[in-house]
């Protein structure tokens, strides 16, 4: 009997909150991730949860979804206490969750992923058939179109996320939890997601939304709860609060959403790219004759919808992807194949996907902190590593970038997403390179950290370094860049000096509308 038969057994008792968490406590070994956390979510509303990295948001939601067990505390759904021992209980209670890291089987088709656990019968055929029908319905009902027979692994993140939502709805979820859903989405995709959420709310569903992007929170939520260091520190009605207030509640101090920076005084070209041509993993050409340069003392931002060649461009520049044609020069010198010479020439790279590339999860932090620079004589005494020196060096970087906990020997995987990101940035920026390539520098990072990271990037620029920034966050691009390049279909579709571009224009170019002729000389 699959859980889809046990759906909708929670008829809300009038007025009772859809979800109620009472004095939840959770330890991970010594880490007290949730301390007496209480939360109440009204039915038919969108409820936002914000907090710094490591504040305990994901943990709390994992507990609600039965993925972790609370050490203490009570959970009430629609007013009646429920024991959630595992996800099956959560599903039975009408809870669905879209995790920070998707819970999908890449080698399965969309349909297979959706029916997994709700197959409705011992044989697949009937269930699959029914699922197709229902998917079509849901698709039209909530604008959740996905190709049902595509392999999930081949889908862009945006669509993968829809699959996650479909999974939840297919199981008849009344309460939908989304953990940093927009972390990896392009603006358009994010907007689409919010349209979907509003519709769901319209249908009377209750939604809990975790995000670090306060603009989004203000835009879609009805109520906001703030967490800090495992505690629930405040609840606000969205209507009556401001970004500044929320930010301050989160970090415990004022934060500026916009870094101020004085006018650009660019110098010589530090990074120049000439007719670069690159192929993607499938062998299709994904960067077509791209030429541009980044000068000393400027930040160049590349805007674009995921999958238009920015990632491949970045990898090619970093030496992670073979160059089919064209030249790359760092400080006027042509770079060889591979990344090592480039590093020596002063090119640093903060990869988009830090979990896969930027860090080595099972390593101690100090070991991850020298990745790519392990040949540096500073880390050695004669031929051997001087771990004491490495530890000191790492500790220094951790302080500088406020990585928590600042323990060089902690296993990398045990840091929260945001802190992992800071570790990578620390490693690359602290070496003060000539040219810095950054991909999605603030993905999954809390605003406190965002502000901090932005400041560091600007500081580099002011110190006369060249920064090339790729981000799906339009306002990050617009806020930081001195020049903005828009990439579409593997080519540079347009170029704007800072400030002269409106979000709308950029959006259009990114979407491939309007022609090259707009691009400034």
């Amino acid at each position, binding site marked *: 009997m*699959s*859980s889809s038969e046990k759906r909708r057994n929670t008829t809300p008792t009038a007025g009772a909150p859809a979800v109620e968490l009472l004095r939840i406590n959770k330890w*991970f070994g010594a880490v007290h991730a949730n301390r007496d956390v209480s939360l109440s979510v009204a039915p038919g509303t969108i409820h936002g949860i914000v907090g710094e990295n490591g504040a305990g948001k994901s943990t709390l939601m994992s507990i609600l*979804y039965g*993925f*972790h067990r609370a050490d203490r505390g009570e959970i009430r759904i629609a007013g009646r206490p429920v024991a959630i021992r*595992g*996800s*099956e209980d*959560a*599903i*039975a209670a009408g809870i669905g*969750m879209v*995790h920070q890291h998707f*819970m*999908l*089987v*890449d*080698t*399965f088709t969309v349909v*297979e*992923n959706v*029916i*997994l*656990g*709700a*197959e409705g*019968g*011992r*044989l*697949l*055929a009937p*269930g699959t058939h029914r699922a197709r029908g229902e998917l079509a319905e849901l698709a039209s009902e909530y604008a959740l179109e996905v190709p049902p027979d595509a392999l999930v692994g081949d889908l862009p993140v945006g669509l993968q996320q829809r699959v996650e939502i479909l*999974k939840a709805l297919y199981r008849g979820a009344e309460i939908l939890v989304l953990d940093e859903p927009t972390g990896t989405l392009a603006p358009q995709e994010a907007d689409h997601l919010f349209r979907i959420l509003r519709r769901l709310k319209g249908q009377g569903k209750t939604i809990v939304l975790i995000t670090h992007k306060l603009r989004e929170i203000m835009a879609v939520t009805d109520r906001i709860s703030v967490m800090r260091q495992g505690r629930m520190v405040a609840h606000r009605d969205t209507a009556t609060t401001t970004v500044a207030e929320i930010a301050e509640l989160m970090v415990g101090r004022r934060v500026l959403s916009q870094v101020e920076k004085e006018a650009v005084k660019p110098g010589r070209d530090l990074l120049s790219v000439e007719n670069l041509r690159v192929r993607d993993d499938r062998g299709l050409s994904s960067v077509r004759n791209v030429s541009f340069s980044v000068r000393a003392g400027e930040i160049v931002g590349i805007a674009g919808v995921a999958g238009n060649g920015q990632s491949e461009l970045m990898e090619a520049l970093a030496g992670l992807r073979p160059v089919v044609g064209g030249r790359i020069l760092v400080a006027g010198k042509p770079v060889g194949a591979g990344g090592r010479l480039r590093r020596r020439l002063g090119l640093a790279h903060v990869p988009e996907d830090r979990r896969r590339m930027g860090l080595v999860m099972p390593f101690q932090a100090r070991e991850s902190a020298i990745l790519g620079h392990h040949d540096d004589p500073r880390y050695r005494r004669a031929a051997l590593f001087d771990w004491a020196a490495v530890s000191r060096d790492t500790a220094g970087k951790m302080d500088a970038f406020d990585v928590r906990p600042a323990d060089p020997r902690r296993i990398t*995987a045990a840091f929260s997403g945001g802190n992992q990101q800071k570790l990578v940035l620390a490693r690359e920026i602290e070496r003060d390179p000539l040219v810095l390539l950054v991909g999605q520098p603030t993905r999954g990072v809390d605003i406190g950290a965002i502000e901090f990271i932005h400041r560091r990037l600007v500081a580099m620029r002011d110190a006369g370094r060249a920064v090339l920034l790729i981000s799906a966050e339009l306002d990050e691009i617009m806020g930081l860049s001195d020049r903005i390049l828009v990439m579409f279909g593997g080519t540079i579709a347009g170029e704007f000096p800072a400030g002269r571009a409106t979000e709308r224009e950029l959006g259009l170019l990114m979407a491939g509308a309007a022609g090259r002729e707009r691009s400034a000389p």
Partner: protein
Amino acid sequence: MELLTLLALVLDSTLRLSAPLILAALAGLFSERSGIIDIGLEGKMLGAAFAAATAATFTGSPWAGLAAGIGASVLLALVHGYACITHRGNQVVSGLALNILVSGVTAVLGIAWFAQGGRTPQLPGEARFLPLEWPGAAPLRDVPGVGTLYSELLSGHNLMVYLAFLAVPTVAWVLYRTRFGLRLRAAGENPQSVETAGISIIALRYRALLCTGVACGMAGTYLSLAQSASFINDMTAGKGYIALAALIFGKWRPYPAMLACLLFGFLDATAIRLQGVDLPGVGEVPVQFVQALPYVLTVVLLAGFIGRAIPPKALGVPYVKER
């Protein structure tokens, strides 16, 4: 001897040699597709072979033997599960430990019960799975071509051989057409996704190991009740590892795995025929080279034609919720 008959005879022994490999490989498939490395096929086969022979000796019925064989193998599979699933122990160590344990236990019990150095007594025909003659096989034997193929290849194998080859489509069907199969494949790729879908990984993997036990039990029984007439110490002689190799060779999929097993069987059968044969020009090939041939060819094929084998993503990773 004219070529077709020779071929027929080689293929004939190919079938006999690959049958146990196929059963064992399918057994491994269940376990590994669910994310549990099974290097213990060898031990499970050996245990099953012993249990089957013992039961058949006491009851005189091959069916009792089969039941006992499956029982023993399932028991071992569950121990493996207890170590690897319940206690998240190292799956390779567990498999090796069971292999060693079984080779010892079978000998100890064998000596205690039969006092023949761990061997079981020779079984009479009615206590074994004997070749089944198909209707009209005898008369057709002398019809060249079709007749030979029919009588040598199709007819005249024991029940277990036919079972082995029937098992392949069955397993494929379970794997790709049933709920259990879907969850099994998911468990091996991304256990979290299964857990978050409200299914207990633990229960699922135990069920997978049950299937492993059953298939391996049949493989072991085949050795002592069909292919030979008694249990002999360490009679698996490395077949468990070969089956594992075949499974990987077949990229953890039923039909390709079967083909790999057939390949091993065929190469082995050919090697048997090539011994002591003078090759034109070369003269007589040293027997050791002939014996090494199957393994060399396997490597060559693997390097030359079969590309990368990508294992189930979660294979060998103990499942931990608090990742």
